[in-house]
């Protein structure tokens, strides 16, 4: 949570203020008194003009009294400045009761002498005016109240009641002028309240007496949702925020949301953090989101936005960091249960105090209330990351333009804090999916789109990165499955009609598997063929070798036979010759077998 000096420092360091240096130079500027009201001092660049009256005006029920009271209470509690409350309408008891609901124990402050009340009752019908008079009695009471506690802060609420109590306008006006001079002379910082008039800031033209600072409070109802706004109408001699700032009144008092005063001067981190899904990290340059960046996930109903967000949330907590999950559609229990069904344990980080899930119906309050509650939650919990699921629902809490303005403020606020923000946006039916940014797409650093891919009679989930500043990112449309173990991104199959998803992808996978099997079978068959042919060749070789051996044998046998036959012939011839007594030498062996 930022404290005052830090905010001031941030503003001073980062906000290019066209009026500086000069009127807003702390050395030379009008001395100011911090109100202590959350956000208001930022709008007023320090506080109310010290020792001067400030007019706070607005319609009935716009919060003038509460703002005034908080000014005094904070002064007494936080700045050691006692206060005097001069009420013209409510009694001390009524006031004390009214602000008790804001957590202010006014009675205790009164007992401690830090606060004093005076209820100035002016009843026209009880009073007869005869001759000249002045309001010295009021001055006496004011002086008494201031002196009783040494008041540095005074509230007159609302001094316009005097106009209904007295009939002599000339006297009243001169007395009012004298009153403001008196207050200035006493050096007390004063809030004077006034009812808003028809076409004028106050019914009685109080603005004519209070020339230094005028704050206008407004309470309007649009589409049955009320919003409160504050505007600094004028602040003489100093720069101030000029917009209408939403404010709210809740159990912690009054708070103004000065977010539009934040410029683009925030520092950025180079650190990358995981998306919670490894393959999605891969799509984002392999490392995931930038820390402190703003991520938008948009998609149609049931496209898995919450699951993706829950992945991120649990990954934040897994690092031991805090994550705030703001759910506008589901209760914490419901989210926890649903995410358990996809294998995400959100209950453990909740128990560990790392994850806080806050649910609220968007229509429960106006936008400002939501914004303020988010602020407060962020400042109390100080999360490293925040998930808002979904932002699109917030537009039901106000008009679209307001919702956009509020989101811009919120994103600015989170960026300045360096909180990683993951926003979920629901895209309605037929609307172009890229038009789902609620008008904030220009502030988004990483934008993921989840969409239904319809093909082959099926509806499947596709994810792609529409933009991601400062990092290389995948241009693929990836199918993702929500499984018992969370979200799984699938491989990409591009068919003739685009990316294949679902059954088509499964078919494609099956086809590829079949083809692989076929290829393997083919290879095995060829192998077998080769082996067979080799075996055949080997058999042939064996046969030939056998033949060869046979021939060889045959050769040897025939030679032996020949020799034997020759020997026999020779023997016979020799025998014949012997019998004839012929000359053996005359006959050639073998020539006549």
């Amino acid at each position: 949570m930022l404290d005052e000096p830090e905010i001031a420092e941030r503003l001073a360091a980062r906000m290019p203020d066209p009026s500086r240096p000069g009127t807003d130079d702390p050395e030379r500027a009008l001395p100011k008194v911090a109100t202590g009201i959350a956000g208001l001092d930022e709008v007023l660049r320090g506080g109310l003009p010290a020792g001067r009256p400030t007019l706070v005006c607005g319609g009935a029920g716009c919060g003038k009294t509460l703002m005034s009271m908080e000014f005094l209470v904070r002064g007494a509690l936080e700045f050691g400045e006692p206060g005097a409350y001069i009420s013209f309408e409510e009694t001390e008891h009524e006031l004390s009761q009214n602000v008790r609901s804001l957590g202010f124990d006014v009675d205790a402050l009164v007992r401690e002498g830090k606060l004093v009340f005076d209820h100035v009752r002016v009843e026209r019908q009880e009073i007869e005016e005869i001759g000249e008079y002045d309001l010295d009695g009021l001055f006496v009471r004011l002086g008494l109240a201031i002196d009783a506690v040494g008041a540095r802060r005074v509230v007159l609420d609302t001094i316009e009641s005097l106009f209904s109590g007295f009939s002599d306008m000339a006297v009243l006006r001169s007395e009012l002028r004298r009153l403001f001079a008196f207050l200035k002379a006493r050096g007390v910082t004063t809030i004077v309240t006034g009812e808003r008039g028809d076409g004028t800031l106050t019914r009685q033209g109080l603005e004519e007496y209070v020339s230094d600072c005028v704050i206008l409070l407004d309470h309007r109802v649009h589409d049955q949702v009320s919003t409160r706004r504050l505007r600094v109408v004028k602040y003489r001699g100093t720069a101030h925020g000029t917009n209408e700032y939403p404010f709210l009144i809740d159990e912690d008092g009054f708070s103004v949301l000065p977010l539009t005063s934040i410029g683009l001067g925030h520092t950025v981190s180079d650190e990358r953090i995981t998306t919670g899904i490894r393959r999605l990290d891969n799509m984002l340059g392999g490392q995931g989101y930038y820390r402190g960046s703003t991520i938008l996930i948009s998609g149609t109903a049931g496209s898995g936005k919450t699951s993706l967000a829950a992945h991120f949330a649990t990954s934040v907590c897994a690092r031991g960091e805090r994550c705030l999950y703001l759910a506008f559609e589901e209760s914490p229990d419901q989210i926890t249960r649903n995410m358990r069904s996809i294998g995400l344990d959100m209950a453990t980080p909740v128990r560990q105090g790392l994850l806080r899930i806050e649910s609220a119906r968007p229509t429960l309050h106006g936008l400002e209330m939501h914004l303020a509650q988010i602020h407060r939650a962020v400042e109390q919990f100080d999360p490293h990351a925040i998930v808002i699921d979904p932002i699109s629902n917030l537009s039901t809490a106000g008009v679209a333009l307001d919702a956009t303005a509020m989101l811009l403020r919120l994103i600015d606020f989170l960026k300045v804090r360096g909180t990683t923000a993951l926003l979920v946006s629901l895209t309605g039916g037929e609307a172009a999916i890229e038009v789902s940014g609620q008008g904030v797409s220009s502030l988004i650093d990483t934008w993921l789109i989840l969409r239904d891919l319809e093909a082959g009679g099926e509806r499947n989930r596709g994810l792609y990165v529409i933009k991601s500043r400062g990092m290389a990112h995948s241009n693929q449309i990836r199918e993702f499955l929500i499984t018992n173990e969370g979200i799984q991104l699938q491989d990409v199959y591009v068919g003739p009609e685009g990316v294949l998803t679902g059954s088509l992808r499964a078919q494609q996978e099956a086809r590829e598997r079949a083809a692989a099997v076929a290829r393997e079978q083919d290879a095995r068959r060829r192998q077998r063929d080769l082996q067979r042919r080799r075996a055949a060749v080997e058999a042939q070789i064996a046969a030939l070798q056998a033949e060869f051996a046979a021939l060889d044998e045959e050769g040897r046998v025939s030679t032996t036979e020949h020799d034997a036959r020759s020997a026999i012939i020779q023997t016979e011839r020799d025998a014949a010759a012997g019998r004839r007594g012929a000359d053996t030498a005359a006959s050639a062996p073998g020539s006549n077998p």
Partner: protein
Amino acid sequence: MSTAMTELHEGTAGQWAGDEKWDLRLYIAGQTPKSVAAFNNLKRICEEHMPGRYRIEVIDLLENPRLAKEDQIVAIPTLVRKLPQPLRKIIGDLSDTERALVGLQLRPRA
């Protein structure tokens, strides 16, 4: 006028007389011309209309500022008629005697 203004100013008889007793309180803040005029006018009216039956208590809020809060005094001078009942408040210097008499209910409204 003197500091005696903060004291009781009773009628010439010095005691209550008649049926109707008048208990009046005049709040002032310092001896301003308006306060002095108011006191003188009041005194004159009392002497004329209720001699001996009135008392005027003059309260200077500069000396008793707490009474301004306690008695709900805003305008100066303020005359409070404590008695006779009901309580009436009249502001101003009572320069218009006729209206002052009406205001004090000494004379019916015209």
